[in-house]
């Protein structure tokens, strides 16, 4: 750390106590010596003081273990992390700003892409906010609400599977990854069947959902439930009794309830401290109060606890999906959009010989039967509907914690502002407290236990 350039040679002589030949000054880089004489004693003493091996390492943004394009700036002393900071913004796509230039319905297409592992939650929180501003919360038909719950809980399973799979991969447990993605694929197949897409669905719309359940979907869902009940215990067998897996996770990334509240952590990290906080119970939306399920907690407040909470939540989600499927069986043919034609999306989709497309019945109606129908369709699709002036914040319990959409309307056909309180963004702030003082390998475990999705962090 010796330097003989760049500093004012007179700086050392201004204070009486400093060495005449080797003036020192404290900078943000450490102690800097200005060598001007032949006396090296003070220099060697000073170097011994700061002789620790202090290394600053940039980990990411392109690193397979940082859970996406997350950049970690780690200050290391040997293998021990003394300081950890996050650099984010590598996936910033300006979704919130983009939404201000699209209609309220088109906004769903944007926000579904934020947290790409839990798209239905992004859509739901935004749509619930819009519905609150429209004051049609109570008018949304039951079938739409049940379908939302069904999709959200299936999504929770797929998201937790990825959390466990990638978390396992990052600490070297590759089998966990392969079986995690194997099961997630089954959920994505269900999404594809119901919404037409594996991700970026834009399926939950203001006023309801885009489309009715396709024929045979309920059978597929029931088949999936049976299969998952057989396969979920595999994760428990693979991980819970595995001494290496357990050893890597236990006691790592500790954060107690106090720390969680101060840093705003919600979701599995909060529940792993033993505090049963779940918005599905405390502020039910979409009719969650009518489903029978339990809030899962663990009391170790570490990475292992978060893993166990996710594992147990998948079982609860299976319970909810089963109840939702039962209700849907009784709701065949029920409406899936609000009756208010000034809000309800006029276009209809159907499956034709060449795949999913516009419903021919609807096209015949607007092109051949009703001029008013055509005008109505055109106005709603191009202009959209107006939302009364005001602001709303509706949070939902996403797999990662509280996901809330703050939507502001100035009475126009486009959002004046849409802001998303993404749980990944907030939870990632805990990286420092979870990993400082631990080993480098534990940083990976700590971050994997937060399970941030960078698309949601950067938006």
């Amino acid at each position: 750390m010796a330097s003989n350039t760049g500093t004012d040679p007179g700086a050392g002589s201004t204070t009486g106590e400093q060495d005449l030949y080797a003036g020192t000054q404290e900078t943000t880089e450490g102690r800097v010596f200005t060598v001007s004489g032949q006396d090296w004693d003070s220099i060697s003493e000073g170097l011994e003081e700061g002789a620790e091996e202090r290394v600053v390492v940039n980990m990411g943004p392109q690193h397979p273990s940082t859970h996406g394009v997350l950049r970690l700036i780690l200050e290391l002393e040997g293998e021990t992390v003394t300081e950890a900071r996050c650099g984010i913004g590598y996936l910033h796509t300006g979704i919130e700003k983009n939404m201000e230039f699209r209609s309220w319905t088109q906004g769903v297409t944007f926000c579904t892409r934020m947290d790409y592992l839990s798209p239905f939650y992004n859509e739901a929180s935004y749509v619930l906010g819009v519905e609150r501003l429209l004051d049609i919360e109570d008018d949304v038909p039951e079938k739409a609400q049940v379908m939302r719950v069904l999709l959200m809980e299936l999504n929770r399973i797929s998201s937790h599977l990825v959390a466990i799979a990638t978390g396992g991969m990052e600490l070297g447990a590759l089998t966990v990854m392969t079986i995690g993605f194997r099961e997630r694929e089954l959920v994505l197949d269900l999404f594809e069947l119901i919404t037409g897409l594996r991700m970026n669905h834009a399926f939950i719309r203001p006023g309801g959902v885009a489309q009715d359940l396709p024929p045979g979907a309920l059978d597929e869902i029931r088949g999936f439930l049976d299969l998952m009940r057989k396969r979920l215990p595999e994760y428990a067998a693979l991980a819970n009794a595995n001494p290496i897996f357990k050893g890597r996770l236990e006691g790592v990334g500790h954060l107690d309830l106090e720390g969680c509240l101060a840093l705003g952590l919600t979701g599995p990290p909060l529940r792993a401290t033993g505090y049963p906080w779940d918005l599905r119970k405390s502020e039910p939306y979409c009719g969650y109060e009518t489903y029978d399920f339990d809030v899962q907690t663990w009391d170790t407040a570490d990475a292992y606890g978060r893993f166990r909470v996710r594992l147990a939540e998948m079982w609860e989600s299976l319970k909810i999906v089963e109840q939702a499927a039962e209700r849907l069986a009784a709701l065949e043919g029920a409406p899936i959009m609000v009756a208010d034609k000034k809000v309800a999306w006029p276009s209809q989709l159907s499956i034709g010989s060449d795949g999913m497309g516009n419903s021919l019945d609807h096209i015949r109606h607007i092109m051949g039967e009703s001029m008013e129908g055509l005008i109505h369709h055109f106005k709603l699709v191009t202009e959209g509907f107006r939302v009364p002036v005001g602001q709303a914040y509706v949070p939902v319990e996403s797999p990662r914690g509280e996901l809330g959409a703050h939507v502001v309307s100035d009475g126009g056909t486009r959002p004046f502002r849409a802001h998303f309180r993404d749980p990944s963004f907030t939870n990632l702030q805990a990286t420092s407290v979870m990993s400082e003082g631990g080993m480098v390998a534990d940083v990976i475990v700590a971050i994997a236990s937060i399970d941030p999705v960078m698309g949601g962090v950067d938006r």
Partner: protein
Amino acid sequence: MSDDDKREVEKDVTSAEPEGPEQTPGQPAVEQSPENLPAAPGQVHQVGTRHGMFGVRGSGDTSGYGGLVSAVTYPAPSQRPYGGWFDEVADALEAATRAAGVEQAVGSVVVHRGEITFHVRREDLLTVARVLRDDEALRFELCSSVSGVHYPDDTGRELHVVMHLLSMTHNRRIRVEATAPDADPHVPSVVSVYPTADWHEREAYDMFGIVFDGHPSLTRILMPDDWPGHPQRKDYPLGGIPVEYKGGTVPPPDQRRSYN
């Protein structure tokens, strides 16, 4: 009427209707939720105007609807009783801030769509946040989010800082709003009360240029460090898209023909 003319008119309308006790007789009905009583006279605060029937600009609309001008007014302040637990929180907040030395901390309260918003002066924001977190009757332990909203037409209070707070003890949610003018975009930071506000405030600074005084390290978080401007402000210039066809371009989104 060209776009420039319309803007002139817009300014005139706004300046002709200063916020104050006198309201123009042509004031349209304020959007009110059923739980609200009407605002006291003179409290309706206009934050902009909307032109035309469809919000289309520059289309050469000759239908006559293009001349329509309507006011944009956000939900007006509510009067007591606010209903439900809102009154308890408002009372407790009033008493606790008074004990903390702030005589009139809450400027106005808006109850709309079942959500309550406390508008506070920015100099009291930190005191209010501390009281909201610590007072037994309030106990808003979790700060859900801090974000900004830019209202360019809300003269003198263009930048709004919006905090969403959650009390897990009482299972209540409130919104606290403070404002700052564009010319002096300073708001106290609440990081000392809610450490979770750290990144949220950095994001609000990055996107809106709101300076949170007292923040430990107010730097950009999403945009690159050397980025000019604050992208989510309404006056941030947007780029168009050049098209390789006879020198044509796709205009920036805020200048395209569109509905609003």
